[in-house]
């Protein structure tokens, strides 16, 4: 049997620096672990904001197999109807559907959990395959859980207006997580993730605008051009606190930075109050980011620089979100093979306010149009059964 000895690990990794070897060796020294609960979820999701409506189901089934394995499968659909500001100003409204399948399993060995998953996302102009590997181990008599993860994605980008267009985009992610019991009433976690992209990272349909005195509007459009690499770092701290009268408060903060010069801060707080079989949730989330260095709402002339973006997700903006949730637990004494069930309704209202993305639908002097903003409604209706 492989035993965990620090010196052996260091020697082995000098010869073979692969993360997999490290992680497999790490698994040998593991402590307590528990497989995820057996459950089935049926979610209906609905998004409406900025001229875009997206809805569809997400179905998840997770089941333990034997004493060491838990397997899961997820089926997810986005049915999209888009007349967003990008679409109506530079293209025409469209409808499409994205379907995503993912399968995976968790393996409990000694006291460590290893997780593998594969996902495939498919729409008529974009395909994505994603593999993920993770390992989690409890240390310090269960006070601390440390997790490591690696993911690799391979995407193919196509265009509905140019059948000859096909480009690749690859993504890798490295994750580290630590969750910690602070007191008998408080939990905290820290997560760190590095993501690297390489390939065709922009949108084949999106354009940037530039000043053009020869145009009737005073500006014209040209296709956007992004760098073909991107590396980002994100670190998040979260905490949950159990209140004496059985309620919970939670809060979190994330800092994000990348080599496109985007820095972002995310902060959120929430409160959960059980009342008998009911649970009430309220929450607030704040997000703010700086723009990418190659972003501009209006470039001074055509081909003004080597990289060009006018994607509002790369602009400087902030958003505020409010959440209300209510859930009801039923079958709390079980029924035949079912242990319990719950039905939940979540409503999120998101306000987006852009600092340097202008609403050009109403015309006006180029560069002096009103700044764009919009609100989005997000509804989730979730049925869950545990067995």
């Amino acid at each position: 049997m492989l035993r965990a000895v620090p010196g052996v690990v260091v020697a082995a990794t000098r010869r073979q620096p692969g993360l997999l070897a490290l992680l497999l060796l790490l698994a040998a020294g593991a402590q307590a672990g528990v497989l995820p609960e057996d459950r089935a979820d049926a979610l209906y999701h609905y998004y409406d904001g900025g001229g875009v409506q997206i809805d569809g189901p997400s179905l998840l089934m997770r089941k333990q197999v034997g004493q060491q394995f838990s397997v899961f499968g997820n089926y997810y659909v986005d049915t999209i109807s888009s007349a967003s500001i990008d679409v109506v100003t530079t293209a025409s409204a469209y409808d499409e559907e994205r379907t995503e399948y993912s399968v995976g399993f968790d393996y409990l060995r000694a006291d460590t959990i290893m997780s593998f998953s594969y996902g495939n996302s498919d729409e008529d102009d974009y395909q994505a395959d994603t593999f993920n590997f993770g390992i989690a181990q409890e240390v310090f008599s269960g006070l601390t859980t440390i997790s490591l993860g690696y993911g690799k994605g391979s995407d193919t980008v196509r265009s509905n207006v140019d059948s000859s267009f096909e480009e690749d985009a690859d993504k890798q992610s490295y994750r580290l997580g630590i969750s910690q019991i602070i007191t008998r009433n408080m939990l905290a976690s820290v997560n760190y993730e590095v993501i690297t992209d390489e390939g065709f990272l922009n949108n084949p349909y999106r354009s940037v605008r530039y000043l053009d005195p020869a145009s009737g509007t005073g500006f014209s459009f040209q296709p956007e051009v992004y760098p073909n690499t991107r590396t980002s770092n994100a670190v998040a701290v979260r905490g949950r606190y159990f209140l004496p009268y059985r309620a919970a408060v939670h809060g979190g903060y994330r800092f994000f930075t990348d080599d496109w010069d985007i820095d972002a801060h995310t902060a959120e707080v929430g409160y959960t109050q059980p009342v008998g079989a009911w649970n009430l949730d309220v929450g607030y989330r704040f997000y703010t980011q700086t723009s990418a260095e190659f972003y501009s709402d209006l470039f001074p002339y055509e081909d003004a620089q080597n990289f060009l973006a006018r994607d509002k997700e790369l602009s400087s903006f902030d958003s505020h979100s409010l959440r209300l949730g209510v859930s009801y637990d039923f079958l709390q004494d079980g029924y035949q093979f079912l242990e319990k069930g719950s039905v939940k309704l979540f409503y999120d209202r998101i306000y987006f306010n852009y600092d340097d993305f202008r609403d050009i639908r109403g015309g006006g002097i180029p560069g002096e149009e009103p700044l764009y903003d919009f609100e989005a409604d997000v509804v989730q209706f979730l049925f869950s059964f545990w067995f």
Partner: protein
Amino acid sequence: MSRLRIIRAFFLLICVVLLATGCSSVDPWVKPYERDRLADPIMSFDRDPVSNGYINHVYEAREGARGASGSSGGGCGCN
């Protein structure tokens, strides 16, 4: 390339710390029998994975920031 080396060194350090500490027993300041409140579902960081995955996707598709959500993510965030 140097960034990758830093990431590898970081992961290696974590692994060594894990292995060095994983085999020793530590007297926990919160005993296992004192963790009933922490085991309450309202204290879970990921009470409904399907719902959390969805709302993370909603934000990632509309924001420049990504990652460190505590889940593995996946799929395309292009919508």
